[in-house]
């Protein structure tokens, strides 16, 4: 199973905010087992989708090299359920950021109706947690392209976010070695 709980970026402003979408479909495995006979999208996966949205928002500031993990779900209030055919819209906003972590608020809507209010705390791992990167740059680059991050991503002054050089170089290396 692919552990991506967002389908596409609609908006991405470096260091500030991002909006992602997740389309809910009956073809997804989690809907089979979560509550058989009453297919709906697990709330826990909405939290994960927001964590992926917020985590990428934080790590982009260092060209996706910083290792960001969800450390704490400070707040998770859900007001509704999402069913097959629904489109979940996740708006992540960085509220506070330090060298070792960040706090992100998440407003979630489905069909323009309030769906969830989240607040997530992220840790940014330092070298005391080892030095292995979380992602192979070429793989992450492919995912980010698929999510259309580079199509919508901008810096606060409106300048487009380009694909980091280290990702392009890794991509080139992997193509050559294939």
């Amino acid at each position: 199973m692919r552990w991506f709980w967002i389908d596409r970026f609609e908006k991405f402003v470096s260091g500030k905010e991002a909006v992602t979408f997740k389309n809910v479909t009956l073809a997804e495995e989690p809907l089979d087992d979560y509550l058989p006979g009453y297919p709906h999208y697990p709330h826990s996966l909405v939290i994960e989708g927001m964590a992926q949205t917020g985590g990428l928002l934080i790590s982009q500031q260092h060209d996706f090299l910083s290792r960001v993990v969800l450390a704490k779900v400070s707040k998770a209030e859900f007001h509704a359920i999402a069913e097959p055919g629904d489109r979940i819209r996740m708006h992540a906003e960085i509220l506070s950021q330090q060298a070792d972590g960040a706090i992100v608020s998440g407003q979630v809507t489905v069909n323009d109706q309030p769906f969830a209010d989240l607040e997530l705390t992220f840790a940014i791992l330092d070298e005391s947690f080892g030095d292995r990167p979380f992602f192979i740059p070429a793989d992450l680059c492919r995912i980010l392209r698929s999510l259309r991050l580079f199509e919508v991503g901008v810096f606060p002054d409106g300048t487009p976010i380009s694909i980091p050089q280290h990702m392009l170089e890794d991509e080139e290396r992997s193509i050559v070695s294939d």
Partner: protein
Amino acid sequence: MPSSEEIFEKVKAALVDALGVDDDEVTPEATMVGDLGAESIDFLDIVFKLEKAFGITIPREELFPDDILTNAAYVKDGKVTDEGLSELKSRLPWADLSKFEQNPRVQDFGNLLTVNDLCRYVESKQ
């Protein structure tokens, strides 16, 4: 300028919210780590909530003097030296370091901070 009681109530609210502890657990003497169970990542949340509640900015080094505690000039055999202690006192004038001074093991510093210390720190920023 808010009174000491108002500051305590706001600090308490921030801690109850950030740590999921009960109101009555948050006493002035309670230590953040030992009594209230705060983990390192919780401090990020606590700092954020205090900044919001009091409209202040809290530079990390003002609350967490890691640079002093990891500086070889101020630490010897796992203990903070006299020089280190005076550095800590000048950086953290609001903290009660009297107990720590008796046996200033670096590893114990993390459990030093009390609710009252936090209140005094916030008061110093008003």
